[in-house]
């Protein structure tokens, strides 16, 4: 994948913003992901060129922290909580319901690019377990049926 000129501009602006910042690598990568949706190896090369942080170090960061994704995200980002409370409340069943109704697995994006599924640890709404979030909006007290319905409606 080529880096487009808009993407390049965005990367340059972000790097410039963190010029005099100690320990800037993570915030730079986070902001790139926030703006562009992911951090591709090509983006990493560009950041390395601009900041003189070795690309290997940046790559090490991106693969260490689970927040970073190397590929673009699907149209709808479904995060399924698999924290303890949600596990006890049957998160596995919710995961299965989402996997079967979107035709993709946790950690992957469906072929049509419509859904990205992710398993996450505790969204912090344990009293509403099982909990999921779709594009940042949190849904509590999920059931397998609600999951299927949600996917149909998206």
């Amino acid at each position, binding site marked *: 994948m080529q880096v487009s000129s808009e993407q390049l501009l965005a990367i340059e602006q972000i790097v410039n913003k963190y010029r005099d910042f*100690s*320990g*800037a*690598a*993570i*915030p730079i*990568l*986070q902001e790139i992901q926030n703006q562009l949706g992911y951090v591709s190896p090509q983006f990493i090369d560009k950041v390395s060129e601009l900041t003189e942080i070795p690309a290997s*170090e940046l790559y*090490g*960061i991106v693969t*260490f*922290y*689970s*927040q*970073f994704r190397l590929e673009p995200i699907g149209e709808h980002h479904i995060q399924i909580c*698999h*924290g*303890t*409370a*949600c*596990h*006890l409340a*049957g998160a596995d*069943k919710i995961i*299965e*319901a989402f996997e*079967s109704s979107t035709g993709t697995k946790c950690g992957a994006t469906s072929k049509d690019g419509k859904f990205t599924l992710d398993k*996450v*640890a*505790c*969204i*912090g*709404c*344990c*009293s*509403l*377990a099982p*909990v999921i979030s779709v594009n*940042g909006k*949190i*849904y*509590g007290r999920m*059931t*397998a*049926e609600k999951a299927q319905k949600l996917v149909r409606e998206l």
Partner: protein
Amino acid sequence: MANKQYTIKVGLASCGIAAGAQQVYDEFLSKLSQQEAALDAALILTGCLGMCYCEPLVEVSTKGHERYLYGNVAPEDVELIINQHLFGGEPVKELLVYAPNLDPEMDRYMEKQVRIALQNCGVVNPEDIASYMAAGGYQGLQKALRLGSEGVIAELKASGLRGRGGAGFPTHLKWSLTRQAPGSVKYVICNADEGDPGAFMDRSILESDPHSVIEGMLIAGYAIGAGKGYIYCRAEYPLAIKRLKLAIEQAKAHKLLGESIMDSGFAFTLEIREGAGAFVCGEETALIMSVEGKRGMPRFRPPYPSEKGLFDAPTSINNVETLANVPRILQCGAAEYSKYGTEKSKGTKVFALAGKVRRGGLVEIPMGMTINEIVFDIGGGISTGKPFKAIQTGGPSGGCIPASLGDTPVDYESLDRIGAIMGSGGLLVMDEDTCMVDVAKYFLTFARGESCGKCSFCRIGSEKMLEILERITQGRGTEEDVALIKNLGEAVKTGSMCGLGQTMPNPVLTTLKYFANEYQAHIAEEYCPAKQCKALISYVIDAELCRGCSLCERACPANAISGELRKPYTIDPEICIRCGLCTSTCRFDAIHVESKPKSSTVMEVAQ
């Protein structure tokens, strides 16, 4: 605001918002603005009121400080509350969860708790510094500046405050070590990584009362001689980060951050760093690496961060709740704080009560309260009505405590004695339907995934322990497996460098200790008493109850169900993937989960 006849508060922390509290707030806003002339009422956004189990929550309080709490409020209820309660003076009984003389059980729920760290949660508006100040905010800092650095540390020592992030290290000692360490540049870090996957105390405090944490950091900075602080907050908490940022801006505008704070000559600035999804970054040395912009790999201690921390400078790392306690200790005095708790564990502890408990939510108890009091008097007992089986504290680093030890007081020493830990405040309640082997496997799976990979014991040991647990939960375990996993667990504990590896065997070891018979059932009988382990259960349709409606057949993603309309359906156990979708679609409760001990099936065949 206090001079209004009614104050209406809507709990808008992320759990409330997830339950629909924003719509309720908006409805109040629009309805009240239409009635502005006729009603003497103020609408206030507030944080977590603690009773997450009946969110959205609305509190109506009167000028005379009488509190009426409404639970499970829907936007449609707003008009009724306004008409009947605000105009008519008659509370809406059906929606009330707490009110003066309403329900002795709820009185007990309130009376058992002592709110110090949570004092302002669900009380002040977290987006308004004036609201915090009106509640006594920044008076602790004022007092600190009068006492001088040594005086602050002495006050903390007298309070007995210990770190609430898990380890319980005395806070005054951490501060005085950092203060005494040589170096002119020093840092304060607030650990808001809250990695325990089932805990939400720190999130609630940050979302509901961000200024108390900022004030705590200012006092810490003043005490140890630091000019800069960092808040390391997990990125999964966007609302906490948003409110923190806002609070920092407001504190700056009030000259409570920056140069010469309160004209004392003390200067302090704050920055937020977002975590990027790594549990190990809650460990202090890994966290420091992460703030420095690197991979969060723990390092050997000593040197401790108090000597050599962020950018190699002396650093005090404190947990959110620890810091939230600090302003109150200074404001009210150490004696007021230390009158709660036990001899060695002073003050209160906040718990995120969750799992199979009726009143899940955020609670704060004086140390020394027993587990039973928390689960039953505060939590209201088991939500499913089934027997209470165990609690789990401390998440992946903690232990499972059986119901038979429910009389154990919750303080650092007592929990330690029974092989569990206080942890940072996650408290999961489990009922009979919880499989303890599955719980151990769950935590170990989590910890294995989060191992940074540096120590072989942690990296490979966790993998091997997990393989054994997999075997056991699939009914393929052997008698030797129990001894093997115990040995491995002890080895991982002693052979790992950081707390992650040192504590990750705890859930396994404590369940082995207290629930040995459950492991035995899986191994010897290929039987899961809680009917949770997929390989050992089957779904069966009760021919008597089945009406042959075909709903389950259509719901089954594996096409394992077949039958003829209006006749009983059947499930093919060979094809069934045990997802349970059929059970939740069945309208007649006709589909059951079964797990039978091997010996009983042998007997059945023999018969």
